[in-house]
C-alpha cells in the first residue's frame, strides 16, 4: 500500500535504533521497553512485509539497504519472537530476501545468511548445556522433536514452585523469591496467548506471597486482560477475578470493553447482551466488594471461598488469616492500608471467617487451650480500633467463656441458668464493652445450636438474653446469617439447622 510505505523509512530508522538499544533484551530496562512496544513493532513488521513483498530482492536492498540488519536484530530478540504473530511476519519478511537464482557471490552470500537466520528462528536450539545436546543427538532426536515436551515440563516445574508458596505458607525452603516471581511475570508478557503458558499464567494470577506490594508486573496484568477480552486465552473465572482484584486498570478496561460492545451491538438483541454480560464475569465480581487499597496478599487469602478449602484445613487457613491481619494491624509502617479499619472491613465482608473462627473454637475439644490466633481474630472482629490491652482483655474473657462452655458440654443436664452464668451475665464483675458482650452472646448461641441439650433450653436462654429489643434483633440477625452461611457451605447439621430455623420463625413472628 503506497501510503503506508511513505512513513516507512522514518519508522525504519526509529525501530532500527530501538532494536539496537534492546539488543537481546537481557536487562530489566530493555525488557520493559521491548514489552511496551511489542504491538507497535508487530504492526511495523506487517507494513514492512507489505512493502517488501511487492519488490524483488535486489530492489529491496536498494530501497532498504539496512533491512538485513534490522531483521537480524529482530531475530535475536526473544521477546519479539515470542510475541503473538511477530515470528511469523518476520519469517515472511526474510522469505522476501531470498533470491531464486543468485547471479553473483554477493547474492549467494545474502541467501545463505538469510537462510541461517531462518534456521535460527525455527530449528537451531542451543540450551547451552553440551551434555543435553549431545545426549539427545545420540538418542536421535532433533531439538524440534523435543521442545514442546521441554516447554511443558518447564511450565509444570514453575507452576509447582509457585503453588508451593500457596500451600506451605511458611515453608521458606521451597519458596520462590518475590523478585523471581516478578521476573517471571515480565517474561510472560509476550507469551500470555500461547496455550502452553495458560497454567503458568493462572498460577501467577492466583499466587499470593507475603509481600505487601503487588509482585506481578503491571504490563503482565494488562496483557492477560487484553488477551482475555479478545478471547485469546482461556482461564478459569477465579483467575480472572484475582486479576481484577489485583489490578484496577484491568477491571476498568473490561468494563469499558463491555460498554463498547453493548453500545455497538444492536440494542434489540437482548439475548446477545445477556451473553456478553454472562461472559464478562462482571456479575460474579459485583458480589464482592472491591478494595483498591488493601494489601493484595490479604485480599487473595480472604477471597478464597471456605468451600474450596477442605474442612480439615480450616483451622490452618484461619490461623494464616489471623497472622496476616495481625501483621497489618500491629505494624504501623503499612500506613497505606488505611489502618486497621480497612482490614477489618475486608475481613468482616468476606467469607464469614469470624463466624467460622467461633465455630472452630467451640468444636475443638481436642485442644486443651483455645488457640491464640483464633481468639485474636474474634477479638479483632468485634473491636478493630481497640488497643493492644483491650484486645488482650477481650481474648481473656472469651477464653474464660469457652472454658465454661466446654465444661457444660460434658455435664449431663444443661440448664439455662448455667448458660447465663457462663456468659458472665448477671452483673458479676465489671460490665464488658458492648461489642465484646455481643461476641459472647454469639458464642453462646452457637453453642446452643450445636449442644445436644440445646434444643430443650433454647427458648429460655434467648428470653433471658434478650433484655432489649436491640438485642432481640441482633439474635434474629445472627440466626439468619448462620443459616445462610450453612447453606452456602453445605454444612451438614440437620438438627442444628432445624432448631435455628424454628427459632428464627418464632422470633420473627414475635418481633
Amino acid at each position: 500500500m503506497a501510503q503506508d510505505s511513505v512513513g516507512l523509512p522514518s519508522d525504519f530508522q526509529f525501530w532500527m535504533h530501538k532494536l539496537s538499544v534492546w539488543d537481546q533484551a537481557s536487562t530489566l530496562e530493555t525488557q520493559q521497553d521491548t514489552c511496551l512496544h511489542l504491538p507497535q513493532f508487530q504492526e511495523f513488521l506487517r507494513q514492512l512485509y507489505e512493502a517488501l513483498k511487492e519488490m524483488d530482492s535486489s530492489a529491496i536492498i536498494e530501497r532498504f539497504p539496512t533491512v538485513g540488519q534490522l531483521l537480524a536484530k529482530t531475530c535475536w530478540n526473544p521477546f519479539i519472537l515470542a510475541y503473538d504473530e511477530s515470528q511469523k511476519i518476520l519469517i515472511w519478511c526474510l522469505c522476501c530476501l531470498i533470491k531464486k537464482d543468485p547471479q553473483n557471490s554477493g547474492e549467494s552470500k545474502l541467501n545463505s545468511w538469510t537462510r541461517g537466520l531462518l534456521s535460527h528462528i525455527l530449528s537451531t536450539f542451543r540450551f547451552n548445556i553440551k551434555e543435553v545436546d549431545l545426549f539427545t543427538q545420540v538418542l536421535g532426536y532433533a531439538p524440534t522433536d523435543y521442545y514442546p515436551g521441554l516447554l511443558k515440563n518447564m511450565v509444570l516445574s514453575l507452576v509447582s514452585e509457585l503453588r508451593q508458596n500457596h500451600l506451605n505458607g511458611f515453608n521458606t525452603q521451597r519458596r520462590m523469591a518475590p523478585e523471581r516471581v516478578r521476573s517471571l511475570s515480565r517474561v510472560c508478557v509476550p507469551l500470555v496467548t500461547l496455550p502452553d503458558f495458560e497454567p503458568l499464567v493462572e498460577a501467577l494470577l492466583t499466587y499470593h506471597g507475603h509481600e505487601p506490594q503487588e509482585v506481578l508486573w503491571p504490563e503482565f496484568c494488562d496483557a492477560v486482560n487484553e488477551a482475555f477480552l479478545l478471547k485469546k486465552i482461556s482461564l478459569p473465572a477465579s483467575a480472572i477475578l484475582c486479576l481484577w482484584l489485583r489490578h484496577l486498570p484491568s477491571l476498568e478496561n473490561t468494563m469499558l470493553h463491555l460498554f463498547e460492545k453493548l453500545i455497538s451491538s444492536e440494542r434489540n438483541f437482548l439475548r446477545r447482551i445477556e451473553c456478553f454480560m454472562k461472559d464478562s464475569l462482571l456479575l460474579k465480581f459485583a458480589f464482592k466488594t472491591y478494595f483498591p487499597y488493601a494489601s493484595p496478599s490479604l485480599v487473595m487469602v480472604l477471597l478464597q471461598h471456605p468451600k474450596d478449602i477442605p474442612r480439615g484445613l480450616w483451622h490452618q487457613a484461619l490461623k494464616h488469616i489471623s497472622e496476616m491481619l495481625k501483621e497489618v494491624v500491629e505494624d504501623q509502617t503499612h500506613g497505606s492500608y488505611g489502618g486497621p479499619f480497612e482490614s477489618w472491613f475486608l475481613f468482616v465482608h468476606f467469607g464469614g471467617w469470624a463466624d467460622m473462627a467461633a465455630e472452630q473454637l467451640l468444636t475443638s475439644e481436642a485442644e486443651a487451650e483455645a488457640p491464640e490466633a483464633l481468639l485474636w481474630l474474634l477479638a479483632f472482629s468485634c473491636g478493630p480500633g481497640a488497643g493492644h490491652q483491650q484486645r488482650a482483655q477481650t481474648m481473656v474473657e472469651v477464653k474464660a467463656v469457652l472454658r465454661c462452655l466446654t465444661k457444660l458440654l460434658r455435664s449431663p443436664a444443661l440448664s439455662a441458668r448455667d448458660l447465663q452464668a457462663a456468659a458472665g451475665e448477671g452483673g458479676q464483675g465489671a460490665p464488658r464493652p458492648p461489642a465484646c458482650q455481643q461476641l459472647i452472646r454469639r458464642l453462646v448461641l452457637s453453642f446452643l445450636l450445636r449442644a445436644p441439650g440445646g434444643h430443650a433450653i433454647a427458648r429460655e436462654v434467648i428470653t433471658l438474653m434478650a433484655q432489649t429489643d436491640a438485642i432481640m434483633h441482633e439474635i434474629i440477625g445472627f440466626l439468619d446469617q448462620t443459616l445462610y452461611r450453612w447453606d452456602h457451605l453445605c454444612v451438614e447439621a440437620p438438627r442444628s439447622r432445624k432448631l435455628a430455623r424454628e427459632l428464627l420463625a418464632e422470633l420473627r413472628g414475635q418481633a
Partner: protein
Amino acid sequence: MEPLLQHLERFSEVLAVSRTTHVSTWDPVTVRRALQWARYLRHIHKRFGRHACISKALERRLQNQWKQQGDSGPAPAPGLANFQALGLCDQLLSLRLLANPALGDASFHYLLQQLFPGPGVPDAEEESLQGSLARLARRRAAIHMLRFNAYGENPVLQEDSLMKTQAELLLRRLQEVGEAEAGGPGRLLSSLWERSPQNNFLKVVAAALLLPPSSPRHQEEELKLGSPKTPGEEGQELLRWLLGKSDVMVAFCRSLPAGLLTLVAGRHPELSRVYLGLLTDWGRQLHYSLQKGLWIGTESQDVPWEELLSRFQSLCQAPPPLKDEVFTALKSCKAQDGDFEVPGLSIWTDLLLSLGSSA
C-alpha cells in the same frame, strides 16, 4: 493397501535423504512431490487414526524398516518411528529441508513459497503448516526466555525439567525400539553408554527410573493404538539393562548423589539389593589405620569412609522396608566380623555407631 504401504516406505527414504547433501540434486519439482507425499500421509493419519487395522499395518511396515536399519545400531534420526509420527511428517520434512544448506537456492525458494504463503491463507491456523511452524518458532523463543530470565535449575534432580525431558525422551525411544524388536532397547542403551556423556546419561537413567509410572509421554493429539506393551515396561527394560551391566551399575552407584540413589533404591527393590551389595563390597576394601584413627583404602579407586557413611546415612533415612533392609544388612555384616562393640575393629561396627541411635 499395498500402494499406501509402498508410499510410506518411499516417503521414509525421502525423509532420510532430506538431511543429507543428496538434496543438492533436488529441483523444485522434487521438493513439491516430497511435500505432497508428506501432506498425503498426514491426511492418512488424520483419516485413519482410529482405524486400528490400517494404522497397525502402517506401523508394522515402519517397524520392519527399523529392523532393516537395526544392524547399524539405532539409526540417528529414524524419522518415522511409529504411526503417531505420521501426524507431524510434513513438519519434520519441512524443518529438515529448511535447515539443510545443501538444498539449492531455487528449490529453497520454492520450498519457502509453499511453507509460508503469507497472510490470507484460507485454512484454519491449526491445520496449516505455516501456523504450526510459526508456533514452533514461538515455543522455541519461549523456552529461551524462560531459560535465561526466570529459570532456576531445580535442585531436586528428577523434577528438573531438562532431566525430566531427557528421561521422557529416553523412555519414548526405548518404547519405539522395543516395539520393533526384542533386543533393541538393550543395544540402544549400550550404545548410549558408549557414545554420550556418561555422567549426564546416568542422571537421566535415574530420573527415568523415578518418573511416575503413568506419566503421559505423548502429546494429547496422539492416539495410543493398542500397543502390546504396557506403559511402564520401558522402565523395567531400563532397569534390567542397568542391573545386567556391572560396570554401568558401579558408575551409577558411585557418581550419583546419595539422596538420589536412595530414592531410586526405594522405588526399585531389585536395585536396592545390588546397591547394598556394592556398598558392602566397598566397605570390605577399607582397613583401619591406627596412626590416623581412620578407615582408609589402599587403592585410589576405593570409596572413602565419608562417602560410604553418607550413603548409608541417606539409606537409613528412607522409609521402610528399605531402611530395615539396610540395618539388617549392616548388622549381619557386623555379626560376621565378630560382633564387636569397640570401634576400630570392624567397619560395620563403626558405621552403625556413626549412624547413631536410629538403629
